[in-house]
């Protein structure tokens, strides 16, 4: 049964209080023993930040009310740890503002007092960007969860940043619309966080990036200035389009408080097929053919290799292999969404049968009802979750103690799987290398699973992975962002001049550097 990790942890050294913990659970006894990765984050707490004092607490309490100023240890410890349980900060204060004005006052105060802050949404980020590194004050947007308005003709939704993605979807479904993004974390992630990380997700291939779907934002800057850019217009070429700066800035340029987003109409018919391919070349060709023949109907195109499939089937309760008789090298999930059920189904069937006759597909299954569709999706969505479970050693059933090194890369489609194949001989028996991801977007999630964290293994992986990606002009972070994990890696994907300009913009918008410090950009650029 699940046992929460004990609060005892050894500090790596007296100066860093950002601990990377690894909790292993033994298969039979549920005993946990902790081991630390020696890949410690070597950042010192910036001396320019003040420490909280009782006057600050008093001010916050008078402004927000006692209930919204949290110093309770249990709630703080949950907010101090990221979803992967990889990073832990030591914040002493969690604030829950209820409206933009309160956010503005908090930031104004923190800016004048040089108190560092971390904006926090659903805390489902994967690069340690949503939790404190040291004692930064956590500003949680969770209380700002109001839906403000929906333009029912155009599908323009205005809501506060703390709205949970799944709740927005349920609300929109009643009105005949859907959110243009869909992630595995939808039950917990908030739209403000999605915007701040420019989240991608499963439907990126159909609805595109948030840069295209966000019509407006309301953002609070470091000094408390409220920037009202909450437009609702598709076309507005008046001046520099500043909202794009904040989309994907991971909370380092301002706190998003309201969002205006264009929501596509909810189409009635969804068809889902799980396919088996013999090699990666077939997957690529299948993608090309699908784009040509299914065209605008495609709403998702995902792939996973056989190791990923085996892992899911081994660890997921109730998971069934749709092709029990044989094992294939690659699996592809194709979803089409349209307005005419029988026409769309016939189109997908015809395409798949042709592909099978052409040798692109070795086998496939089409979901016949919503339940079958969700079991196909579970196989793909649970991949990351299951790996996290392996990684943190938690599982309801059996447990495989393991550590996972995760990489989220954007690469040209032809080269996407090459990195997986190059990694395998480098690591040999010591690790299992698994690849899966949004093939339709050229986004690979590379996962390397080992028995435990080991610097020798890490040395084989990094910087090779980043250099390889850089050589092929890929991105070292396709959709997860830089956060804390890759704060010093940006040069692999961006030129020095570009990073220099980013640092200038950061200094302009946040001169005291209080917004989500130590993350996104390398410390050296910001001194």
């Amino acid at each position, binding site marked *: 049964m699940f046992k929460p990790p004990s609060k005892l942890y050894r500090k790596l050294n007296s100066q860093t209080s950002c601990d990377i913990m690894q909790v292993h659970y033994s298969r039979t006894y549920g005993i946990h023993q902790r081991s630390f990765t020696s890949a410690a984050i070597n950042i010192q707490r910036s001396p320019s930040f003040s420490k909280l004092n009782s006057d600050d607490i008093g001010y916050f309490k008078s402004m927000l009310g006692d209930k919204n100023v949290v110093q309770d240890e249990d709630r703080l410890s949950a907010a101090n740890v990221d979803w992967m349980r990889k990073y832990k900060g030591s914040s002493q204060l969690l604030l829950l503002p209820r409206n933009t004005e309160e956010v503005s006052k908090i930031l104004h105060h923190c800016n004048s007092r040089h108190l560092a802050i971390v904006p926090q949404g659903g805390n489902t980020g994967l690069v340690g960007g949503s939790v404190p590194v040291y004692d930064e004050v956590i500003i949680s947007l969770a209380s700002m969860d109001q839906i403000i308005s929906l333009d029912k003709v155009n599908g323009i939704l205005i809501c506060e940043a703390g709205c949970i993605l799944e709740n927005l979807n349920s609300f929109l479904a009643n009105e005949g619309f859907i959110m243009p993004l869909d992630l595995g974390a939808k039950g917990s992630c908030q739209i403000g966080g999605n915007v701040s990380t420019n989240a991608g997700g499963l439907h990126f291939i159909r609805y595109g990036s948030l840069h295209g779907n966000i019509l407006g934002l309301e953002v609070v800057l470091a000094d408390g200035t409220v920037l009202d850019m909450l437009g609702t217009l598709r076309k507005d070429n008046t001046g520099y389009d500043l909202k794009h700066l904040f989309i994907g800035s991971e909370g380092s340029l301002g706190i998003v408080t309201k969002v205006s987003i264009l929501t596509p109409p909810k189409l*009635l*018919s969804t068809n889902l097929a*799980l*396919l088996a391919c013999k090699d990666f070349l077939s997957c690529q060709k299948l993608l090309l053919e699908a784009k040509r023949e299914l065209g605008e109907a495609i709403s998702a195109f995902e792939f996973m290799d056989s190791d990923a499939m085996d892992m899911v089937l081994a660890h997921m309760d109730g998971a*069934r292999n*749709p*092709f029990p008789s044989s094992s294939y090298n690659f699996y592809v999930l194709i979803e089409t969404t349209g307005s005419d*059920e*029988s026409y769309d189904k016939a189109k997908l*069937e015809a395409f*798949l*049968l042709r592909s*099978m006759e052409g040798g692109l*597909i070795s*086998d*496939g*299954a*089409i*979901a*016949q*009802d*919503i*339940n*079958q569709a*969700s079991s196909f999706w579970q196989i793909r969505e649970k991949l990351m979750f299951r790996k996290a479970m392996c990684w943190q050693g938690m599982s309801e059933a059996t447990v495989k103690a393991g550590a996972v090194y995760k990489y989220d890369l954007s690469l040209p489609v032809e080269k996407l799987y090459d990195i997986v194949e190059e990694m395998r001989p480098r690591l040999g028996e010591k690790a299992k290398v698994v690849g899966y991801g949004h093939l339709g977007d050229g986004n690979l999630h590379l996962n390397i699973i080992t028995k435990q964290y080991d610097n020798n293994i890490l040395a084989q992986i990094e910087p090779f992975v980043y250099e390889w990606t850089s050589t092929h002009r890929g991105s070292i972070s396709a959709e997860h962002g830089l956060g804390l994990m890759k704060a010093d890696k940006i040069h692999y994907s961006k030129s020095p001049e570009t990073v220099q300009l980013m640092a200038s913009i950061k200094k302009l918008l946040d001169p005291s550097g209080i917004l989500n410090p130590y993350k996104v950009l390398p410390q050296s650029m910001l001194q």
Partner: protein
Amino acid sequence: MKILVAVKRVIDYAVKVRVKPNKSGVETSNVKMSMNPFCEIALEEALRIRESGAAKEVVAVTVGPAQCADTLRTALAMGADRAVHVDAGAAPVLPLSVAKILRALVQVEQPGLLILGKQAIDDDCNQTGQMVAGLLKWPQGTFASKVVLDKEKQVATVEREVDGGLETLCLDLPAVITTDLRLNQPRYATLPNIMKAKSKVIKKVTPEELNVEIKSDLEVVQVTEPPKRKAGVIISSVDELIDKLKNEVVSCNILNCK
């Protein structure tokens, strides 16, 4: 031996069902329809029996309007050999009429086994299988959670899920079996089977051709939603709790007060 499987097209199990504003029924337009989950299990069982060599042919049959052909195509894609579509028009057909139609079809097809789902998830009647068995004077094994066929002795051993536990019956074939949830896990429709299904036959028949008159003895008067769940109340003290228990809880049975 031939196996006849009756399947029904219903609102998909995962859809959030809504009542029509005029309360005459449930919203079915623009809503995803699929094969009844128990019918899928029935079909899966028939296919497994055929694969074990105890039967030669699996025939799927459905009663309903034109769109029901989709459900038959799913049945063929799962592996049924052929299908029969009894087009009875748009009005919903009640279990007794379905049972009469199935009896007529059984007399034409002469199967050794008629397998149905135990009930449909739209009306939850749980009547058709029992009624057909009565009309045909065939033995019935309902709520089957396990079926074992003895080809030599022409006997089906059926384990049934009943309130008290499990009951095992031996039925002489031909017989009627209705399937329960734990009987099996239906297979996915795979591409090779979908391909084969394209050349399989769906025969269209009308109730008149089967000499069955469809008349409805029942009329749906009204369909309403169940009462909305009231929000709980947070009580501030033990005294308040006692007061509420004394005055607002009508029966103490639930709380086991002695």
